[in-house]
């Protein structure tokens, strides 16, 4: 069965179970608990889109919940508009708010983003107080109860909330199985690598934020009508809302749509059971027991119940099958005389300078890269080699100078845009997406060219085939050797169909055999028509590989030319190779 169909079937099963529960349960109070489970699961799913998939921890997600609640209720109170239609306006308002919040806030990274999001619900609380909406009660519409979501039958609220949950699950699943979902996870795992592989991280995060505002707003609107019956700033923008959301997600597990569902199904009933048992006889103790339960679950399954159970299940299944690959990686040599450099200029670097405060990392560096050549960039530590790559693939904007790629100025473009134009790169220290399989890692690169998941998967599989890693497709990067990691990163880069490949020390940390494999691989890359720029310390390897060399020292271009000539250059020898090189390698040429 294709895995995609399996996901939809799982969603249908969850909804069917919810439906069954709603018809089994008789007592009004139990219906309420069920409604709460569905709503908090939906709110958890909303949070999971931005914070689970995209890894942008939001402590202010109740802003959208509250906007959903207030907009629908105020439309009922002021205009007599049914909440069914009011919710559409509420969703629109929440998405607009997401844009307004995201524009300034996504400039912040990591925990700073999270802290900044705290401010928005606080602001909204003050605004609601100021507007005089401290307590807004919903007027009872006895004639049109259903039309105003004021059912007397508690089961109806279950069904509405279950509908919200089904919608949130469907949205989550669509995201999980789409290019956006893969990009978001890649951004969460390593934002720079994702950006270099063509994922425009700002746009992806913004899209995720806007999408995550939708279920939050709907959940907020339904919560007020089904659960609270009145709206106060404290009740919808308060810390209790976000803490309940976090509890549901952390207990269940983040980054998967099943996490919030499991978390809500466990923690909401636990909290209610505690309220009805200990809470009524010893008021206050329920909070203590609830906290203890939370700590226990986090101790047993720090990544959440879903991942905890999954890990145990996987461990049991793969026990014994812990095979390491049998054969060493063997790569066929490319045709003996690959098409050499054509002479057309692919990349033209003109007068690049870049300073970090007082340190001049690059000053006035110029060179060009010809189609289908292998250009080596060498230089001692701190010469500015990696800074140069960062300028070339868009991580850094140069202070002066210009980079032209295929005749067009590309200075200042985002890495993702450069990637789409055909500049691929690997990193000095391999940057993986650790929680994605090898195949998925490479798929992230493939998405630069393919929007459809199936085709991206096929393209990634063929890229893995090209680097002889097909048998490791389902492994996690954590289990790979250094050589395999380097090959995986190369495959990921090749999957973006680059014209120019920037390789940052691809041989670092490899054994002698590994170096040979990698060198052959790089030759094959060139043989397929790509142009390669390599940073490398290992001079001997580079002499075998490169058509031309550029030597950097203290941010300046020291020399440029064929390896034979460059290694004879007195300045290069003094700055980089050392006198012994002259004695050893230079002597025969004299």
């Amino acid at each position, binding site marked *: 069965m294709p895995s995609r169909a399996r996901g939809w079937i799982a969603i249908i099963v969850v909804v069917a179970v919810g439906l069954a529960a709603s018809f089994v349960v008789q007592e009004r*109070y139990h219906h309420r608990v069920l409604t709460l489970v569905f709503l908090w699961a939906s709110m958890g799913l909303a949070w999971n889109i931005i914070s689970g998939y995209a890894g942008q921890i939001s402590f202010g997600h109740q802003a959208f919940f509250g906007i959903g609640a207030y907009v629908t209720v105020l439309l009922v109170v002021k205009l007599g508009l049914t909440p069914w239609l009011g919710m559409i306006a509420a969703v629109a308002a929440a998405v607009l708010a997401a844009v307004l919040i995201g524009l300034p806030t996504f400039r912040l990274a990591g925990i700073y983003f999270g802290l900044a999001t705290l401010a928005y619900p606080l602001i909204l609380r003050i605004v609601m107080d*100021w507007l005089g909406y401290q307590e807004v009660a919903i007027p*009872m519409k006895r004639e049109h109860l259903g039309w105003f979501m004021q059912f007397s039958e508690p089961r109806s609220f279950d069904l509405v909330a279950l509908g919200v949950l089904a919608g949130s699950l469907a949205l989550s699943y669509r995201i999980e199985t789409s290019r956006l979902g893969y990009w978001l996870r890649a951004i969460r795992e390593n934002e720079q690598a994702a950006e270099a592989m063509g994922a425009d991280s700002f746009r992806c995060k913004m899209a995720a934020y806007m999408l995550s505002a939708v279920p939050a707003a709907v959940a907020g609107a339904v919560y007020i009508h089904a659960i*609270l*019956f009145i709206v106060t700033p404290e*009740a919808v923008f308060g810390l*209790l809302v976000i803490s309940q959301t976090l509890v549901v997600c952390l207990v269940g597990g983040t980054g998967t749509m099943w996490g919030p569902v499991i978390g809500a199904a466990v923690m909401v009933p636990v909290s209610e059971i505690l309220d009805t048992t200990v809470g009524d006889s010893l008021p206050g103790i329920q909070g203590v*027991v609830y906290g203890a339960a939370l700590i226990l679950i986090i*101790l047993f399954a720090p990544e959440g119940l879903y991942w905890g159970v999954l890990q145990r299940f996987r461990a049991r299944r793969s026990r014994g099958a812990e095979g390491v690959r049998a054969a060493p990686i063997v790569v066929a040599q490319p045709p003996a005389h690959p098409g050499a450099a054509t002479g057309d200029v692919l990349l033209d670097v003109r007068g690049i300078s870049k300073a970090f405060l007082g340190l001049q990392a690059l000053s006035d560096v110029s060179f060009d890269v010809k189609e289908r050549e292998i250009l080596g960039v060498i230089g001692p530590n701190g010469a500015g080699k990696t800074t140069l790559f960062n300028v070339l693939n868009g991580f850094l904007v140069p202070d002066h100078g210009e980079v032209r790629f295929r005749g067009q100025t590309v200075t200042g473009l985002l890495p993702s845009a450069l990637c789409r134009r055909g500049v691929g790169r690997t990193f000095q220290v391999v940057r993986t997406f650790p929680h994605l399989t090898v195949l998925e890692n490479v798929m992230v690169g493939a998405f630069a060219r393919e929007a459809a998941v199936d085709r991206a998967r096929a393209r990634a599989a063929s890229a893995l085939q090209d680097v002889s890693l097909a048998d490791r497709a389902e492994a996690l990067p954590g289990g790979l050797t250094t050589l395999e990691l380097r090959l995986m990163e190369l495959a990921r880069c090749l999957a973006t169909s680059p014209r120019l490949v920037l390789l940052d020390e691809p041989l670092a940390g490899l054994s002698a055999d590994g170096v040979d494999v990698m060198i052959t691989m790089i030759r094959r890359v060139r043989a397929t028509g790509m142009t390669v720029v390599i940073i490398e310390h290992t001079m001997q390897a580079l002499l075998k590989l490169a058509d031309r060399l550029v030597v950097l020292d203290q941010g300046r271009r020291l020399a440029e030319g064929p390896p034979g000539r460059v290694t004879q250059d007195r300045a290069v020898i003094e700055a980089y190779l050392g006198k012994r090189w002259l004695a050893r390698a230079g002597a025969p040429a004299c």
Partner: protein
Amino acid sequence: MKRSLSRMLIVALALALVVPVLFMGQAPAADDVKIALVAPLSGRWARQGQLKKMGADMAIEEINGQGGIKALGGARIVLREADAGDSVEKAVSAAQRVLTREKISAGIGSWLSSFTLGVTEVAERLQVPWLSLSYADSITERGFKYTFQTSPVSSLQAEQALDLVTDLAKKNNRPIKKAGIVGDNTAASMFFYKPLREKLLAAKGIELVVDDVWTPPLADATAIVQKLRSTQPDIVFYGATNFPDSIQVLQKIKEFSVKSPIQGVGAWLVTPEYVKTVGKDTLDNIQTVVAAHPMKGQEELVKKFKQRTGEPFMTQDPLCTYAHVWLIKEAIEQAKSADPKAIRDALAKIDISSGPAVSAFYPPRVRFDERGRRIGATPLIVQWQDGEPYTVVPIAVATRPIAWHR
């Protein structure tokens, strides 16, 4: 080692979940009349909930001690309390739980007006009559048939309180020309300030010289108190419902020797905690508007309450809840039934003006209009004197004469 530790933790958790169930209350006799009290018994407002429970317990003990409900052959009243916690969600949840688990004849609660708004919605849908002391106008503006509000609503309280104090000031030859509003932005306070600002002060030709409202917690009261000192309003409407904020403001007022009379806007200003924290000197002459407070002739009731509970004095929360239980009892006597619908109808028609059921209310007569508001409900003014709050206005029921300000 690690594994056995985990096992122990699991066992501990299981025990924590199961043991309390064993201690749950025993079922009452079948013909008892059950009254629900939904109030915050844990969290920030637990103290108020406890006070309400003290009042309810006292009334129930009296009623049962006098032979229970006569119309039902001496049926006893039992209280079913549910913890409203510190959020609307918990409050509504508690109400739903307590009202559906067994047959409840009537309910009382839930102190904070936003809790009451949510809880009465549940009671309305389940058709259980509900008595509340909350002030918010909106509670009885929704067309509910089962909600009964015994306190004067916020909008009226502001108007009536202003009448009372201007009248008083005139009699003392200190007419009010300048007023201040100082307090936080909690719903109850905001509903009080709003009519003052919008029309009431202007109608009496009073100038509003200070209008300082904050979101709790208050960082520093100095600037606010300095404003009071420089403008010297003839009355300050004071709504710092948050205890730490209020302490801060009162101490600064003392420190800066601000002479303006302080007129609080709620019962939060008359709790024993104030005496313990700021001392009786600082509190002297501070007055506040409340919906209920022991009045002249209730000395016996107060004495009994103090003996039972060890509280230094009786305030609005236990007093109202005490009266609410009695009121429900009277309604049951008139309905001759413990059926919630019959009790509702009896409450809607009730008109009594004597006995413990009216003890908390001024004027001492209970009748409800078609919205469920007590007809003629008037607030009282309570003043701190020698570390105890006394009813000072209206003079007919005052327990002490008002001490006018220096």
